[in-house]
């Protein structure tokens, strides 16, 4: 089984905006993969003129909020950096029993990479203040609103992108094995505060090795 990878267009914004962006994107992706009986819940974005859909699963909501908090905490320590959040769907399969006992292995069949560039609001405003000290208030508010409008437009494009990806490729989706709302186990990976960028990429490499064909591992 192959693993489909989708890279979403990069979104640039401040931490508060990125929080809302992540909610929007993660819920939208999971909504397309939650094939259990769903009563969809429309959610209006607080910062953007956008409506996205949630499954209405409390566990999912909680997990997404936790991951977003984790990510924002990492962003606070690594300001003005480009980063990625990866939402993966996998299957759990039992390996052949070995000397070490029965091990389960994850086979990732889909990965969504959300590319973000989180701006540090303090450094952002300082930079603009130094350029035009006389009319800083107006400039920053106008630039802020135009940046937000641009972010909203980009977010809409990314949502379109998600819908297109979801529709283009469906053959790799495994059969549904349960009656739960969230039909497939999933994982949300964020850059950890303790990990360096190298460590994070090592984690991605490890996952790629796990999802590779058996011939690759031999």
């Amino acid at each position, binding site marked *: 089984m192959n693993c489909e990878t989708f890279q979403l267009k990069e979104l640039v914004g401040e931490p508060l905006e990125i929080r809302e962006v992540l909610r929007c994107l993660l819920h*939208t992706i999971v*909504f*397309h993969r939650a*094939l*259990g*009986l*769903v*009563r*969809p819940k*429309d959610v*209006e974005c607080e910062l953007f*003129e*956008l*409506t*996205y*859909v949630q499954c209405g699963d409390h566990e999912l909501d909680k997990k997404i909020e936790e991951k977003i908090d984790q990510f924002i905490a990492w962003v606070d320590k690594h300001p003005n950096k480009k980063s990625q959040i990866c939402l993966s769907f996998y299957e759990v399969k039992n390996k052949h029993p070995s000397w070490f006992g029965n091990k389960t292995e994850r086979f990732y069949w889909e990965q969504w990479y959300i590319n973000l560039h989180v701006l540090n609001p303090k450094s952002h405003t300082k930079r603009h203040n130094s350029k035009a000290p006389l009319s800083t208030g107006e400039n920053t508010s106008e630039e802020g609103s135009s940046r937000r409008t641009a972010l909203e437009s980009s977010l*809409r494009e990314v*949502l*379109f992108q*998600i*819908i297109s990806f*979801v*529709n*283009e490729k*469906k053959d790799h*989706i495994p*059969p*549904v*094995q*349960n*009656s739960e709302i969230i*039909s497939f186990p999933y994982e949300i990976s964020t850059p950890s505060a303790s990990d360096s960028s190298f460590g994070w990429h090592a984690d991605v490499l490890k996952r790629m090795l796990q999802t590779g064909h058996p011939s690759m591992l031999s």
Partner: protein
Amino acid sequence: MASPSEADRTEQIVVHFLHKTLHTVLASRIPHIRLAPRPSSGKRDRWFNLDLGDLPGPIAQHGAFMDPLVIDVLLTPRRDASESGAGEVVVERWIAQCVPWHGAPQHPHDVGSFQPRTYKKSVILLRSLYALLRLLPAHRIFRMLCSSGQPYNYDLGYRVYSFAPPFSRAEGADLKQYSFSPVETLFGQLVVSVQYRPSLAAFNLEISPLMSPMIITDYIGSPAAEPSRPFPSSLPNWASRPTTSQNPPRGFRPSAVVAPQFDRPHSWNAAPMAHHPLSSPHDRVAKVGSSPPEHYGRLGSNQRSLSDRKANFKFDDFRLSPPFSTSTSPSPPTLGGHSLQSRLQMETAPMSIPMSATGKSQMHRSPNLSDPFKSLLPRPSPRSTRPDLSSQESPSKSRSFRKTEGLSSGGDIYSNLHMYAAYKGLKDGPDDSGRFSALSSGGSPRYAFSRSSSRFSMQDDLDDTDFSYPFAVDDVDTSDSHTRSPDVKDAEYSSSHKSQKAAVGMLVHMLKTAPPLRQDQSCSSQSSDLNGEVSLNTSVLSRKTSDALEELQAYKEMKNFLLSESGAMTKLQESLQQKKRDKE
């Protein structure tokens, strides 16, 4: 060659897919459909695992199930009814269709897994459709119209066709198109596409000042209105013009025909196949105007028995299975998705809160309510002591007041006083005797009391209080009532309704007239049976005080004596010293 059952199932999937598409679009664009109350029947439409509730009545008619389903979403300026149709603009056109295979139909090698995959892909397609509806510009107008209680100068309507009238060149130039990836079925490909206006800025939506407030008595959103009622003609044209148009589409039928309640194909329906297009023509005519699936799937007059419609293939390995209607029994059909079906059935069972539980809870509450002194009193003795009272003592004895027993054991005065106070707060309950026995554990082993006349006098006193417990519940007479005499029992029953008030009043009264602090004769005005105890208590008190006084006096005398003695001693010493000096 596909078997008849596979063809049936595919047909059901296609029919329901088109209906679900229609429902999804209308629920996302037409305010009165979105805001219609959900029926209280509790049934959920589980097709494609997308629960949107039920449509509030007949929506539109359509042709054969292989015909395209075309839905135009119209933005119409709000004007008089005579100007219907003028100025309306198509802001979106949705087309859903099962496009037949060109040439020979393709039959997959693995039919058993093909249909589940088809169904799964259809589920995902509908999810995408739902999400896309929220991204398009018309959704913003829909939200404004839904959220605002005031009328706008525009409104959203719709029109359903089975043939898409072409747009003019000017109209076509303003529209963008988006097509979803098709889903393959046995009959063809399920294709969904939309043509939409990318910008609606030209339409200046604002709250309409022209509309005078009017009361729509049969507003479809009213809780008093039946959701299954046919679309009322009294509503303005801009609110709903589902089927009336100047150019009726093919397959159009007037919606004035009264239609029965829309019924969905559930496996638990008594007659699940009644709606099926291959059912008897009579049934089909009776249900004209009720739902789109009624008119899909006119494959001819072939009548197939229900048994033939049972699935030959199994969904054993696939938990995502359509809620096919295959049998008249409410049990799930022979599909592999048993857990899904059973879960669905469990979900549709209405919840009922048994009254006995609430009654019990109230009953459970009553002991607490009827025993406000429980927190003040020491922990009651185990229940085993109560049988000692109830079983071993005769009723007559239990009714008598044993003063001597209570005091002869040498118990301190305070336990007796507590008992008195507790008696004043006595409630009609089986715990009373047990409570008293607990109290007497410090002194009197067994205490019984009379509840006949004294209680009623206290009750009368308490009735004067204005306290009323909001959740007063009548006491429950349990099996321990056999220990009481019949007349007492009658008295208790008659005064049980005042028990709560009496209890709290007693508490207040007790606090106000705490016996240890008051040594006047007001307590003796209570029941005659208690007078002896009260006077005895006061005499004990006075005795102790008098003893103390006597002791004090004795000490004083001793002190004086000692002082006097000491004085005498000093004088003697002085005299002796003088004598010594004289001698020297």
